[in-house]
């Protein structure tokens, strides 16, 4: 009996000790903002000025694909999350689930954004704006110009031909690369259907046969930086700009077939209990200062959506700021598949990776 009581007490004590781990976490600032983000928003360089100005703390949780991000939200309690970074073309998926709050257009610098990236069709529903584009760029052909002939990089055919066999890496994200494969055979990324998949499959398999590796963000950078690969399918400023200082030979092209435009938006949750702070955060990220810091975030660089971003001339040159009007004209958006087609595309991607 005594022993039973003893063990009970011990077990109780250990539970309390374990619970204390949670409580021991720093009490933190008065207000906290819970943000579901991509890795570029975790940079202290971006968050600190906002935290200091508002006496708040931004808690960030990184996620990969939209499906996974929405799953995180669904497993949380309403009100757990305040803001989310999401592919602009996927804003609809959050709206369909009734997750997002309309944004007050008059309080946001919409007039300053590059007009091509506002993407009203994808972010406005029933006359209300649910997402605002904050950063964009291209999934195209990234390369090391000291190692390849830059003229070859003007056509997507180089990816399926055998001139650079074994010197190519493929960025491990199915949507943009499937988009590029579609463009290589003259299809529009916006109109893809299941009937197009067999032809896209052929292109992907030819690319895979040429490829050395299928790499995530950092492995892509590593592969180009270490000379492991000379060409990155799906690469762009987001992989070359951040390391341009160390290796000025890294560059990207927009081939004659065009490139895939990636674009990320900020959205606010309907159930957020801190909508004022959430709006302030969105305003900060879209301000010229926030835009410059986001554009040059340590995880990856990208074009700021705001034309007035306070970037240095050097940073603008690296991002090829002046050439944007031409690039934007030739770019197409991410494929925006239905959930059923999305699953098929992911299975196709898995099949490509597993191909011997």
């Amino acid at each position, binding site marked *: 009996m005594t*022993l039973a009581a003893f*063990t009970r007490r011990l077990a109780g004590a250990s539970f309390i000790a374990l619970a204390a781990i949670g409580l021991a976490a720093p009490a933190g600032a008065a207000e906290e903002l819970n943000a579901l983000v991509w890795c570029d928003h975790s940079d202290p360089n971006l968050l600190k000025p906002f935290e200091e100005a508002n006496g708040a703390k931004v808690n960030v949780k990184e996620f990969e694909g939209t499906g996974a991000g929405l799953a995180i939200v669904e497993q949380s309690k309403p009100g757990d999350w305040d803001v989310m970074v999401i592919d602009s073309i996927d804003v609809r998926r959050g709206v369909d689930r009734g997750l997002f709050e309309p944004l007050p257009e008059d309080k946001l610098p919409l007039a300053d954004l590059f007009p091509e990236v506002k993407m009203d069709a994808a972010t406005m529903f029933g006359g209300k704006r649910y997402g605002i584009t904050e950063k964009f760029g291209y999934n195209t052909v990234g390369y090391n110009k000291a190692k390849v002939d830059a003229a070859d990089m003007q056509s997507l055919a180089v990816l399926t031909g055998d001139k650079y066999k074994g010197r190519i890496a493929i960025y491990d994200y199915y949507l943009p690369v499937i988009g590029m494969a579609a463009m290589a055979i003259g299809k529009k990324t916006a109109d893809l259907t299941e009937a197009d998949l067999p032809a896209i499959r052929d292109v992907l398999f030819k690319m895979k046969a040429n490829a050395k590796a299928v*790499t995530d963000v950092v492995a892509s950078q590593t592969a180009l930086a270490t*000379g*492991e690969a000379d060409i990155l399918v799906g690469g762009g400023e987001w992989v070359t700009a951040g390391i341009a200082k160390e290796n000025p030979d890294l560059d990207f092209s927009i081939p004659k077939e065009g490139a895939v435009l990636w674009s990320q938006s900020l959205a606010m949750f309907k159930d957020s209990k801190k909508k004022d702070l959430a709006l302030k955060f969105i305003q900060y990220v879209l301000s010229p200062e926030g835009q410059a810091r986001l554009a040059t975030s340590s995880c990856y660089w990208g074009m700021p959506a705001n034309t007035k971003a306070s970037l240095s001339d050097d940073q603008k040159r690296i991002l090829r700021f002046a050439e944007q009007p031409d690039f934007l004209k030739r770019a197409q958006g991410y494929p925006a598949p239905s959930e059923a087609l999305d699953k098929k595309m992911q299975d196709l991607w898995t099949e490509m990776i597993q191909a011997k």
Partner: protein
Amino acid sequence: MSLSAVRAGWASITPALAWTLLFFVAPFLVMAVISLHPQEAGGFSAANYTQFFANPSYWRALTNSLEVTLLVTAVSIVLAYPFAWILATLVPERWQRLALMLAVLPFWTSYVVRSYSWLLVLAEKGIVNDTLIRLGLLAEPAQIANTRLATIIGFSHFFVMLLTLTIYANLKQLSPNYRKAAADLGAGPVRAFLHVVLPLTLPGIMVGAFLTFVLAIGDYITPQILGGNNELLMPQLIMMQIGRRGDFPLASALSIILMVVVSIAYVACARWLKIERA
């Protein structure tokens, strides 16, 4: 045994038992139930399992995993055995502890960082290729990083150490008299080893091999960092379902399939895995 003694016995094992039931057995059952509710189709069906066996790119993840894991296990045993034998028999007794410590020391680095370090070591401009080219042994850099070979090297690094420990412990328990006796009976060193030492160290090998199998087949980091995604192993396929699509039912089904494979390995090794009391 008195009633109070029985009570004391139960009371002392209850916390551990409750913990295991609540946080190991119950989650497993929940996972099994969820795996039968496919995300897309909804309802109650075995679609996630049939999909696994119907889609070659899914079950190839399992065969890839088995190939890599078995190779790693074999390579690690072959490399570790002579090393453990040298440590146990040729190194003077008072230096053995230090020699073992030295072999374990590098594993006090973070294991995520260690895998990443292997990637840099094996890269085209990495130190291995760099050295081989400078020595004139290679004309141009060999492709090692981002291949299955890199995954196997990364795995073997850890498991050579682990197997060295289990085999060393086993060798130390053997009396040198066994070998002497075998020699007296006319067995040469090779026969003495094959017929006496090797069978007696089989438990050490099997315990290490089982641990290697279980830990390697469920590991995500090493293949993800070193394999260059030129093929997927089971843990990568599982994490892909969670990371990209949030498809928990499919991820659960894949986990259960992996669990079945590990259980088969356990049954195969069970006779060597008993916990003996002093």
